[in-house]
């Protein structure tokens, strides 16, 4: 059976209320389209996992989908704060947000351990930092061979991992390249996997060491051209830095944010309609 289906169907079938969901991407290939579909279907009480939660997690938090966030750096890269994230942590709006905080080295290792089916990750890290005082999941062991003190954290195994990639073939095998972050680990660590792609091609043509995720580790492959916008897809389109800058004033204001979610997510049918609407509104030189 082909794994290819619509994004609407994939999110409806695979993402359940209360799931832990990792929508990974390290600045590149961020699965915005899938995030919007989760908001549109009003999934609730999610535990969101991501090393670098950015605008799409800000939107999911502000839209009331999220109970808890596991992360290692939450900001608008190069711009500043995530205001919906801050409002949730500082003021409990629209609902309190539980946080579980890591460092990048730590979190990358916990995905890696999850993919390797190990119970925990080990790290030469966290020494001297206050983070272990506030994240009880970080514990210490003594190396049985050298007596060195090392940090350990439980493996990360999301219920669902969602990523965006460049290409899939008809069978649902996926090929991605460029900055690939922690996506391969997040996919192999997860119970269920949804991947959106720029295009479906007749034949993938990866180099021998290219990153290919075979169809048999994936549950759904959805064609969503531009699905990483306003982040970027190497070889297809560049990062829309203006959008990241323009998001700041929108996210600062609860009413303006609600209106934005209504206009650009809830009131549109799909990501293509959203992009068409947004491109019409994003007039060069308009920075309001």
């Amino acid at each position, binding site marked *: 059976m082909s794994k290819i289906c619509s994004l609407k169907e994939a999110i409806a079938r695979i993402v359940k209320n209360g799931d832990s969901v990792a929508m990974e991407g*390290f600045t590149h290939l961020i699965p915005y389209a899938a995030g919007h579909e989760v908001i549109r279907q009003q999934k609730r009480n999610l535990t969101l996992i991501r090393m670098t939660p950015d605008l799409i997690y800000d939107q999911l938090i502000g839209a009331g989908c999220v109970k808890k966030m596991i992360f290692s*750096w939450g900001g608008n890269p190069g711009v500043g704060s995530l205001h919906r994230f801050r409002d949730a942590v500082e003021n409990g709006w629209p609902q309190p947000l539980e946080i579980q905080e890591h460092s990048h080295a730590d979190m990358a290792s916990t*995905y890696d351990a999850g993919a390797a089916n190990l119970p925990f990750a080990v790290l030469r890290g966290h020494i*001297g930092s206050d983070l272990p005082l506030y994240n009880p999941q970080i514990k210490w062991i003594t190396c049985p061979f050298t007596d060195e003190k090392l940090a350990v954290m439980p493996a990360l195994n999301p219920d669902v991992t969602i990523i965006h990639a460049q290409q899939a073939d008809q069978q649902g095998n996926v090929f991605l390249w460029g900055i690939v*972050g922690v996506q391969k680990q997040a996919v192999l660590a997860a119970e269920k996997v949804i991947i959106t792609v720029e295009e479906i091609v007749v034949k993938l043509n990866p180099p021998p060491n290219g990153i290919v995720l075979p169809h048999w580790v994936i549950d759904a492959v959805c064609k969503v051209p531009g699905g990483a916008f306003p982040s970027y897809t190497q070889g297809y389109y560049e990062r829309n830095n203006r959008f990241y800058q323009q998001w700041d004033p929108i996210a600062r204001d609860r009413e303006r944010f609600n209106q934005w979610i209504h206009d650009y997510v809830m009131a549109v049918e799909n990501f293509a309609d959203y992009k068409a609407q947004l491109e019409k509104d994003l007039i060069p030189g308009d920075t309001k």
Partner: protein
Amino acid sequence: MNQYTAEEMMTIAASRKLKNGVVCFVGIGLPSAAANLARLTHAPDVVLIYESGTIGTKPNVLPLSIGDGELSESAQMVVSVPEMFRYWLQGGWVDVGFLGAAQIDKFANINTTVIGDYHQPKTRLPGAGGAPEISTNAKESLIILKQSKRAFVEKVSFITSPGHLSGGDAREKAGLSTKGPTAVITDLGVLAPDPVSKELVLVSLHEGSTVEQAQEATGWHLKTNDPVPFTPPPTPLELSVLRDLNERTALAHSGTH
């Protein structure tokens, strides 16, 4: 009177700290500007690494984010994030970590997590990112940030990335064998840890700034070298390369992409 701004002087002073040929793990923002200026002036063989996985990257414009396409397209190679932190950083290949900070204290500990109580924060900051392990696994680290009473506090409310902890040999006693912060470069001058106490001392002042100004922008009694020398002003080359870089960057980021 000055023909350059305090921010330009800060970036140039920071760039000079990076020796040619070193392997440098670069934070986004001010560190990235300084590191690329070094690469484009006196340190053409510096190897710049960004945590998104790009190694030996030579961006033509400064990236807005840590994973801009410009970084991967101009990189010698791109590796996964787990590989970056586990093999290259923890593996011991990084000479210098170049970090920014929201808040720093007198022993160069960095806070990028939270102002106020962790559970009921006054200001929630982005969090740790790569900095804690950069500051402990790189052989030494440089820190660049603007000096103000809000940013330079006697004791940070949260140590995200350890500097010299409580000073003296505290870092070594905690089990850290790397040097930690060796300089803090600001818009007013350069601070460095005292060799014994590890307390930050003002070791040079940018022209146009005074010791009083530096003290006024510091939340503890700031010790200074006596007399404190002036930082050599920017050379015409440094200034023109930096301005060209900033101009290219502004142009690239103002477009629709």
